[in-house]
């Protein structure tokens, strides 16, 4: 049954009794456990769960799309060095259909996000909790009432200056939001989501099918076909990922905007993808599955790419922060305000992104020796993966304001409620659910296909690659 071992070339496929053969079952079990937790969360506090689930899902979605980007970039640049490791990336990319299924719960949870709390009410904002759409939850109505209460609070006596300011700001805020109502039209929104999901699913399926098909057909034309599809694929990916990040992350602060936001998401996804590929590649290598096809030279290069993409991530994130900080326009600074002044508990998290996602990995991974020592490289990759998760926590959770109604409530309620991080067990179960299900599909694919693209015409060149 198990394949005869093939010189020093590695087994090239996962044998039925090795540890990797049951990895997908473990992942699936973890995923099932997580999903049970997600169900419990939905029953107890759907709003809190919405934020947890979005954070966990986005962390893995960007990783998955990152691997797809990686694969496409290899085809565009006709790279030979990466042929061996490309298959690992293709497994992660091949798991995107699982992410698409995991996307669906977001539709049931979306009404709890600030943008839909606003636009979900259609035109009658705040006054009455109108049942604008079918899936109105009890919790939703509550928020509407609270917001209404907040507005009426000033009626009895003469309003204070602070209240007047708040109300004035709120009016401007409201007018601004009215101007982009079209973007939050439900039908338009769902059409967009359908396009994203279709593009991701189709591209990942297509590249996976072509590449694994080549293993058997040995048809060199497949390489050409993949190279031909790559340029327009990357264009589609760039646009869909950008707008998806606008829809789900940027819009969490409905009035906020930043043109570079999509690029930061893309860059972060690539870092996470490289970290995941390095760790998985090292695991497969250690188990003796991929032999010399992926060796220290390839890991060195992967380390360089991870380092490079991380620098790029830092560059675009710094650009965004820097320009907003320098110009200091209130409608833009609100993003950093929420993650620094408004709730000081976020300050260490914000700093950790600068220090642990950039500064320390930058110094650590700069050295050639570190990238060529597998334990150290793995340490760098683990750090960056953890920080990737932290980044998404930082992107999503500051917008969670328990029982409040977005920025307006934060201003009028004062800061007393916001001096701690909104950590919840639901964050963990969401991560387990999304990660478990996604990785189960990835690991399952690994048991079904060759672990390197054995018939890729550039494979031989890849094996001889050295730095």
């Amino acid at each position, binding site marked *: 049954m198990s394949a005869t071992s093939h010189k020093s070339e590695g087994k090239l496929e996962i044998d039925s009794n090795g540890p990797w053969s049951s990895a997908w079952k473990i992942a699936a079990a973890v995923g099932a456990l997580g999903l049970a937790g997600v169900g419990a969360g939905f029953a107890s506090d759907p709003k809190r769960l919405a934020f947890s689930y979005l954070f966990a899902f986005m962390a893995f979605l960007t990783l998955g799309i990152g691997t797809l980007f990686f694969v496409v970039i290899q085809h565009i640049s006709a790279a030979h060095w990466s042929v061996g490791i490309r298959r690992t990336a293709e497994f992660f990319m091949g798991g995107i259909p699982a992410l698409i299924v995991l996307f669906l719960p977001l539709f049931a949870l979306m009404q709890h996000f600030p943008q839909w709390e606003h636009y979900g009410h259609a035109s009658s904002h705040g006054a009455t909790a109108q049942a604008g759409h079918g899936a109105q939850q009890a919790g939703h109505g509550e928020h509407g009432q609270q917001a209404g209460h907040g507005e009426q609070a000033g009626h009895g006596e003469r309003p204070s200056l602070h209240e007047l300011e708040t109300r004035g700001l709120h009016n401007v805020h409201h007018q601004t939001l009215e101007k982009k109502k079209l973007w939050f039209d439900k039908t338009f929104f769902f059409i967009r989501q359908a396009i994203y999901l279709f593009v991701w699913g189709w591209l990942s399926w297509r590249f996976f099918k072509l590449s694994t098909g080549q293993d058997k057909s040995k048809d*060199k034309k497949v390489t050409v076909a993949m190279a031909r599809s790559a340029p327009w694929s990357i264009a589609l990916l760039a646009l869909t990922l950008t707008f998806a990040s606008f829809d789900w992350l940027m819009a969490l602060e409905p*009035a906020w905007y930043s043109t570079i936001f999509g690029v930061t998401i893309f860059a972060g996804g690539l870092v996470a993808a490289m970290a995941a590929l390095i760790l998985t590649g090292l695991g497969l290598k250690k188990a003796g599955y991929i032999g010399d096809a992926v060796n220290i030279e390839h890991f060195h290069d992967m380390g360089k790419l991870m380092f490079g993409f991380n620098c790029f991530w830092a560059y675009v994130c710094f650009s965004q922060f*820097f*320009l907003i900080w320098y110009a200091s326009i209130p409608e833009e600074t609100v993003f950093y305000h929420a993650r620094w002044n408004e709730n000081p508990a976020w300050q260490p998290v914000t700093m950790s992104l600068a220090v642990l996602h950039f500064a320390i990995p930058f110094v650590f991974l700069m050295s050639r020796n570190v990238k060529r020592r597998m334990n150290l490289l793995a340490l760098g990759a683990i750090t960056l993966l953890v920080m990737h998760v932290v980044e998404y926590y930082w992107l999503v959770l500051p917008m969670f304001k328990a029982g409040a109604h977005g920025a307006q409530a934060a201003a009028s309620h004062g800061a007393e409620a916001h001096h701690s991080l909104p950590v919840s067990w639901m964050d963990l179960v969401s991560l387990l659910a999304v990660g478990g299900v996604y990785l189960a599909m990835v690991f399952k694919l690994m048991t079904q296909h060759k672990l390197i693209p054995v018939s890729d015409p550039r494979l031989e060149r890849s094996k001889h690659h050295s730095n």
Partner: protein
Amino acid sequence: MSSANPNAPIKEINEVALAAPEYDFHRITDDVAKVTENPAPRGWWVMFLIAVSLLGALGLTLAYLFWKGIGAWGNNQPISWAWDITNFVWWVGIGHAGTLISAVLFLFRQKWRTSINRAAEAMTIFAVICALMFPGIHVGRVWLMYYPFPIPNSMGIWPNFKSPLLWDVFAVSTYFTVSLLFWYVGLVPDLATLRDRSKNKIRRMAYGAFALGWRGSNRHWQNYERAYMILAAISTPLVLSVHSVVSFDFATSVIPGWHTTIFPPYFVAGAIFSGFAMVLTLMLVVRSVFKLHGLITLKHIEFMNKIILATGSIVGYAYAMEFFIAWYSGNDYERYVFFVSRMKGPYAWAYWSMIICNVISPQIFWVKSMRTNVPVSYAVSIFVNIGMWFERFVIIATSLHRDFLPSSWGYFHPTPIDVMTYLGSFGLFFTFFLLFIRWLPAIAIAEVKGVLPESDPHFEAHGDHGSHGDEHHDDDHKSDDHAEDGESKASSAEA
């Protein structure tokens, strides 16, 4: 291990040799060195005379400008930055392709870069010189140019390090210095080649002095390669930083149309885009004047066109983001700049020229026959050069010409001095560039040799002289056999 060379191009997946098959080590030395050894062709002299005349005109223009003050330009209120800063940003941007080719493509192991990196690096240096001229003369009182430098002075004051313009001083001068060092380091082995080929004493002394006694020692190559790698590694963030800092000149302000967060990477992509267009413009001419078709092949041109298409698309993405976010922001001023002022305002002609040149014209390169067509490539490269100049002009002029108060609305009319300063900068650029082409190796001799298949010591056991053409069949059979092993194994596993 098979003795077949896996680095040989694989025809079935459209790979071709980077140098024409008749090239061996000596032929490369010969072809490149001859350009500096033979008398210059007539075409060179024609171009050189034109360039030097323009340079002379630049001298006269600048003399007049210094005498009259920068009122001689059409700059006004509200358009206080106009062609001068447009030209500055445009020239700096052009420089970026050189660094991209020498550093980024090196890090990404794009071997095809070796035929064009030397000239592109030279282009970088000369373009940055042209760029540095503009802010220098824009200050008006050129004798006070020492103000932005941190040197003690009688006023007891220091530069303001929170000013984006000051960052520019540091960024662009660092960029110039590092590019010059990088270029020179690359030149050293080739200068030694010219030294060793020289037939007369003056040449030997001149090239020898700059070759620093290079003797091809591997103990030297080891440090040399490390230095080259480090320079590439630090030039990559440098090149990103330079145009990012240039973009900060605009983006740190609160002027709608200038203040947007995507500016740094967008400027960098635009810079690479315009720089590649300029490399193409120059190399297509160099290639035909000096008959370097065997080293700068259609494949090289195709690669460059692909990068133009890619960076052009990134620029298109940035335009799209600016537009979308201007609308999405719900900010009236943002919306006005993008949807009224630029698209329909008095500068609509410049705006639409930019869109046609930058976004639409490179799309022709989706078609393979177009990106391997020399005249088409040349035409598009010119379009992109023009388009990228317009981009900077559109950003600067359209954002300024309608200030917040309609009483402060204006329009910019260039004066002949504006035009001559700009044309003159071409004289400066081409004088340098033509001298470089004539007297220095325009193609990196050592690096091109390093990418010939026979440069690899492991795969030459059976080959006498790198006959790239004939080995392939061999190869393919071998890798086929290999794959068949995998196949039979796979089927046995499935059984």
